[in-house]
């Protein structure tokens, strides 16, 4: 089973990269390099350290933003899910946040918080937090009533019901919110670097495009997607480790 899904993954990657290679060779556009050109640029940048310094810069707002979004998001989500009053108070904020055209709001953030780390962290949080909060809240609200009743009838305190029943029961939806939130956070981090100040990976993308070094530009984009996928895989592993019985198989198993 695992072997077969591994093969399927390899085949799926090969098909994608093959299509990329062919599209680049036709070429679809002068600005679209082939897969191998991009990979060569990727290895060149990895070897001379450009990529490493860029990621040190990019990962800072990303890690801080995703960290804040995850902890605060799950916390607020639990709170909103447990109390109707906080639902009324907070849910609209996150629904608005989720629907807001972020790119248009970035100038406002820059005016308020400058062009430094704070603004970028805000962009990541605005992208990542709403889906984490809203997913957590709805998961908590939908905890099966009979499980909570079971806890009470076997003498669980409210804290125990919260920690040993509500959170584990909500975990599949919380984790799916985390996965969506983290991917949105990656988008936010790059968006911030493109729209606020060109630093890190965003800088590589902007700079390479301005000097028409398209392989380097696509290599940078490819590397951030790769990182996001690796991180999502890590999240799934974490979920399997924590709540094994909840997991009925993932595409990435």
């Amino acid at each position, binding site marked *: 089973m695992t072997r077969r899904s591994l093969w399927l993954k390899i085949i799926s990657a090969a098909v994608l990269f093959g299509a990329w290679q062919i599209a680049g060779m036709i070429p679809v556009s002068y600005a679209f390099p082939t897969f191998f050109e991009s990979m060569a640029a990727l290895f060149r940048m990895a070897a001379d350290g450009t990529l490493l310094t860029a990621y040190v810069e990019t990962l800072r707002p990303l890690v801080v933003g995703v960290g804040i979004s995850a902890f605060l998001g799950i916390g607020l989500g639990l709170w909103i899910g447990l109390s109707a009053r906080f639902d009324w108070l907070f849910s609209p904020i996150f629904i608005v946040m989720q629907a807001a055209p972020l790119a248009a709001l970035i100038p406002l953030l820059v005016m308020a918080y400058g062009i430094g780390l704070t603004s970028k962290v805000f962009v990541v949080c605005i992208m990542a937090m709403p889906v984490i909060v809203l997913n957590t809240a709805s998961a908590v609200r939908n905890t099966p009533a009979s499980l909570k*009743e079971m806890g*009470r*009838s076997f*003498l669980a305190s409210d804290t*125990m019901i919260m920690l040993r029943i509500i959170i*584990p029961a909500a975990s599949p939806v919380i984790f799916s919110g985390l996965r969506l939130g983290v991917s949105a956070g990656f988008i936010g981090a790059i968006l911030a670097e493109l729209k606020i100040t060109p630093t890190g990976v965003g800088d590589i993308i902007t700079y390479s495009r301005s000097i028409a070094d398209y392989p380097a530009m696509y290599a940078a984009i490819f590397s951030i997607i790769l990182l996001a996928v690796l991180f999502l895989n890590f999240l799934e592993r974490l979920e399997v480790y924590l*709540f094994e019985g909840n997991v009925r198989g993932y595409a990435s198993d």
Partner: protein
Amino acid sequence: MVMPQIKEAVNVPDMPQSDNAVVARGISKTYGEVEALRDLSLEFPRGQLTSLLGPSGCGKTTLLKIIAGLLKPNSGEIEVNGKPVKGPGPDRAFVFQDFALMPWANVLRNVAFGLELRGVATSEREAIAEKYIAEVGLAGFEKSYPHQLSGGMRQRVGLARALSVDADVLLMDEPFSAVDEQTRRKFQEDLLNLVQHENKTFIFVTHSIEEAVYVSDQIAILLPRPSRVSEIIRPTDLRHKNVDNIRRDPEYLDIVDSIWASLRSYVE
């Protein structure tokens, strides 16, 4: 904190009404406008199985949850072992209609969960859980997860969980209604064994007349609008007959018929 009271109760020599493990007195319960129970009184003899039988909407599950302490009655009082019920207690264990198993926990942890919540040490509670898992016939499935089990096996897990906390009173809310007919028959036979060998009081909610007559020492027939106990039937003679022949015993058939006669007008 409540412990001293238990001692007192033990010291008192044979109280006259101590034959009843559970007593319900004048229980009324309304949900908003809907009157679920009105002034219901019922006694549940110790060591016996009492069924609550009636058409849907007659408040039998409500009564069971009030006995469990999960719902508060608007008026009236439940006594378990002579002490009034204020909430869920260690003297009662619940078996749920939809099993209420935790999907993220394996069979062993699910069965041991009641003990886990009571703060029993891991090795001790797992030893107890393993004993009851074997008793309900699930040995070898300790590490399985609920979604890997059939409906009947899941309810056995629910039953093992209720048995493992060693409560005096077992409250069962239509425990077999979600399992198939053959499994159900096996369950009913096992339940008769359980009543005989475990020194516990069983309160059993069902909507199946045959099931109630087959397993019960006492059947309380509840009727709706307003909900009340309309009749108490004790198929005492049946309990001394051979289990294998009950279903074709004339007395069994007569009781089933007479219960149906009194219920039929309430079933639309």
